[in-house]
């Protein structure tokens, strides 16, 4: 029976170290800078263990009862720690406070364990044996934990499930102790009930951990999430970190406030500045209003029609103060009309001409989006411009996905549009591509562009160079993206595959 207690030293030591490692890993995962995170977590944890050890002297009676209660508490708090921390990261403003509180509480209770066990066992061994045995098992446990954590637990179970599993071990120690030391324990029945209830709770949570993990969306938004909404069509997530704001749709980066001006100025001005006194502009997609912001810099523009499927998205960019600040309140401008309709269906039914059309859809990463880059879509798109009109299409990265880019060009050419591809560097995205399309040939050597004042990136002199492509940006695909081959989505998938953290 005493050996059972020594075995529990081993289990308890393993669990204690695992919680520390989980919290450290979770903190560096969510907050970055693993040296800082691990070192502060370990420091806090060790210090808390010291605090626990100190307070152990105040427990004088029913030590076995106290030990059992502590095991259950550690099992419960430690077991749910990872899930709780992931959850609070998304919903709580001061995440660090919660993080250190949790690790401090776990540390305190773990700190109580060894002193208590030593006192429970003090009558059964000689002092020198006791110290030697307890610390031997303690350190073996630590070894097992630190080896299994990176090799087994993280790869096979993940953080949430590992913490639950070790919570189960803690409570199992409590339960076995209750059963074996029945005669030495007070109010054994109630204690046993509590232990069983805790165990069931943890086991059920472990059984449902897959659902839990997907609910917690344990994915890497490295920045703090300031806004999250699941609309009927997509998941909108807005993050903020040191003054930089990022918008993610379904986990794909749409823009970073730091360099979106490069992306949007290139999307809009390279084409729009070629049109003499543009009056009517059509924006397909672009519900963030950032392209509209750029178009509004042309005083001759009388009407901007923005067709974006997601009403909740455009509403967000009409009302959220930070976002309205970013798009200069463009979506509330009287010249801007927002239509929340599907762009394909709208374009198919459209009878109006526009001077300039901006096509700003998410990248063709799914079949549904691939339709908006298809020959059928483009053949309807041609009816939105007359012989003098221009279309600018955002066309993914010609560096990473050169064939995808080429397929977009090919498909536009196949509906009898003249094309001029161009590209810019956007730090958040990398090398980024666009295609300018029209019903007549275009001259890209032009440096006398009617650019509005106050641009941060585009200038007349540099625009001709954007149409130059280096060798590594040119794909050789001859394919045309059709609804019945979706070759673009398939190519895009292949080309982006090596970049697992694919953005935009």
């Amino acid at each position: 029976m005493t050996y059972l207690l020594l075995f529990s030293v081993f289990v308890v030591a393993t669990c204690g170290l695992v919680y520390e490692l989980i919290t450290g890993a979770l903190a560096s995962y969510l907050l970055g800078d693993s040296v800082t995170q691990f070192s502060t977590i370990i420091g806090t944890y060790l210090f808390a263990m010291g605090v626990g050890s100190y307070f152990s002297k105040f427990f004088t009676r029913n030590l076995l009862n106290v030990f059992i209660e502590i095991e259950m508490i550690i099992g419960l708090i430690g077991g749910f720690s990872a899930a709780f921390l992931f959850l609070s990261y998304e919903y709580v403003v001061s995440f660090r406070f919660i993080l250190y509180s949790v690790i401090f509480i776990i540390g305190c209770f773990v700190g109580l364990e060894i002193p208590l066990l030593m006192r429970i066992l003090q009558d059964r061994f000689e002092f020198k044996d006791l110290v030697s045995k307890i610390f031997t098992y303690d350190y073996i446990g630590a070894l097992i934990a630190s080896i299994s954590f990176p090799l087994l637990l993280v790869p096979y179970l993940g953080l949430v499930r590992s913490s639950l599993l070790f919570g189960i071990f803690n409570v199992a120690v409590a339960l076995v102790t209750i059963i074996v030391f029945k005669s030495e324990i007070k109010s054994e029945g109630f204690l046993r009930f509590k232990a069983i209830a805790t165990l069931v709770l943890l086991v059920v949570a472990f059984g449902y951990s897959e659902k839990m993990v997907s609910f917690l969306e344990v994915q890497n938004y490295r920045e703090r999430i300031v806004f999250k909404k699941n609309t009927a069509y997509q998941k909108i997530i807005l993050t903020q970190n040191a003054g930089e704001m990022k918008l993610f749709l379904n986990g794909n980066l749409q823009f970073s406030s730091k360099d979106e001006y490069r992306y949007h100025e290139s999307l809009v001005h390279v084409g729009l500045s070629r049109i003499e006194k543009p009056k009517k502009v059509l924006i397909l997609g672009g519900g963030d209003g950032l392209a509209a912001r750029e178009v509004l810099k042309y005083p001759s523009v009388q009407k901007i029609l923005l067709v974006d499927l997601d009403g909740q998205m455009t509403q967000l960019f009409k009302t959220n103060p930070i976002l309205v600040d970013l798009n200069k309140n463009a979506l509330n401008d009287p010249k801007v009309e927002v239509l929340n309709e599907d762009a394909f269906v709208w374009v198919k039914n459209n009878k109006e001409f526009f001077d300039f059309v901006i096509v700003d859809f998410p990248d063709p990463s799914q079949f549904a989006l691939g339709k908006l880059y298809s020959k059928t879509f483009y053949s309807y798109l041609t009816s939105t411009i007359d012989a003098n009109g221009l279309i600018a299409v955002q066309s993914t990265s010609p560096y990473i996905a050169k064939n995808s880019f080429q397929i977009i060009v090919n498909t536009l050419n196949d509906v009898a549009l003249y094309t001029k591809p161009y590209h810019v560097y956007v730090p958040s995205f990398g090398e980024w591509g666009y295609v300018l399309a029209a019903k007549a040939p275009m001259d890209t050597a032009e440096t006398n562009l009617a650019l509005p004042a106050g641009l941060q990136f585009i200038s007349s002199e540099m625009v001709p160079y954007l149409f130059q492509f280096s060798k590594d940006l040119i794909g050789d695909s001859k394919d045309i993206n059709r609804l019945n081959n979706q070759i673009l989505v398939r190519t895009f998938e292949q080309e982006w595959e090596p970049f697992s953290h694919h953005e935009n």
Partner: protein
Amino acid sequence: MKTDRREFIKYGLITSSIFFGSVYGIKQLKSRTKRRGNYTGQWLDQSDRGHQLRDVIKQEPTANIKIPLVIVGGGITGLLTGYYLKKNGFTDFKILEMNSSAGGNSSYSQNSVSKFPWGAHYIPLPNKENVALIEFLRDLGLAKGDIRNIEFSDEFLCQDPQERLFIKGEWQESLLPHKGTNEDDQKQLHRFHELVNDYKTKKGSDGKYVFSVPVLDSSQDPNFLKLDQISFADFLKEHGLVSDVVVWYMNYCTLDDYGMGIESVSAWAGLHYFCSRRSLDSNDDHKILTWPEGNGWVLQKLTNYLKDHIETDRAVFNIRTETSGVVQSRIYNFETKELSECESKHLVYAGPQFLAPYLFKNKQNLPDVNVDDYFSWIVANITVKLNPDEFQKLHWDNVRFQSQSLGYVHARHQDLRGRSDGTTVLTLYWPLYDKDLTATEVRKKISKLKWQDWAPRVEAELESMHPGMASVIHSMDIKVYGHAMIGPRVGRIHKVLKQPWNARKKQGVYFAHTDNSGMSLFEEAHYWGHRVAQEILKHG
């Protein structure tokens, strides 16, 4: 110690029973809330009206009418007969349909989510020799260009991704199994593929392709026609194509087109499925035309064009040719309950031919078909709201390996919309074939089954492909077809080819139906509609 151990076991048992009990309980609770999601649906039984007629047959007519040409049956063949008559300026005809809407196996419905099919739901691209069909499809606006250089519109070609198969717990692209198959399976599939490629271009001694669409264009070379005398199952065995994977795939294909398994259809018919279509160009292999409402799209064009000629809720029976050559018949109006005696110059019988003995007074010279040539089907239309991820992954056709059903098609697949809220209608096809029973025995077995009996089966089928789907079902409408379609059993094609069909089996009477061909394909319906109309125009 003794008490300790006993106690230990006791509490061990208590703990584990609480644990396993609660896990089981939660599972039960979950499955109970899942099952019988809170949905309802319609039950559509095709056979009601036929049975009502039994009493009407004894009544005396109360009116006399004259319709120069009566087309009995508003299925696709009847409608196409009318289409070609009207197109050529012949307008003195009526198409009489027993049901309250025309369409037969191409009928469709619509709800707030989408249109959806109740039967035939696609048309393969025609062979280049089938000029009449190509012209027809072009006239409907499905294709552009010169007949020899026709281009089908992308909007109506089945969009990518087209087909997927649920096998060994996972989805794979294409219906040909490759996930979890062994080398032998793949070798056999490869051998079959080579066999098919060989037959596709092979011609008989009469210079015709061995397998062609329409069937009547196929070679009559006895060397190949003898394939109609053995079952497809025996043929596969003879060629060593016996692996589970191959046999499943072949059986799936014959069930899909004919409603019968490989034990019943002939080797000729089984091979016809694979070898009769030669793509217009190399890019067109396996391309099909499809619409949310399936062939209901074509049906709408036809009924719209023929709206002055179609009369629904009309049954025609007691058909007889008088010695004067005039064709007499009785027409019952289900709406007014009125029975009329009708005099016609011609009558086109475009209904299923197993009914002919009940509708013609003189039983001689009737088509040689049998009720056991027609198996039953269940078609279920399930309106669901999927989560966006699941919706994204849908293909047009979604099939489960070794399932009894044929899987489901997804009505909003052809939607041009880039994004969707996840609502759609899934059409699940379930041929009620049993290799150990005749079609009549199957009908008897299912005759008592109603919506309440089928809905859980359909639900279980969906659940086996998509755990949890039951809880997102909004409604489920189910239709049972007692005699869904003719299947080319052993010997049928021989009859079709060897006793060339005579358009006027009886004086003044034409038989126009895919039953003439022994297989229920759109191309066959078109062939007979077109041909019978030409005959009528020729003979006036």
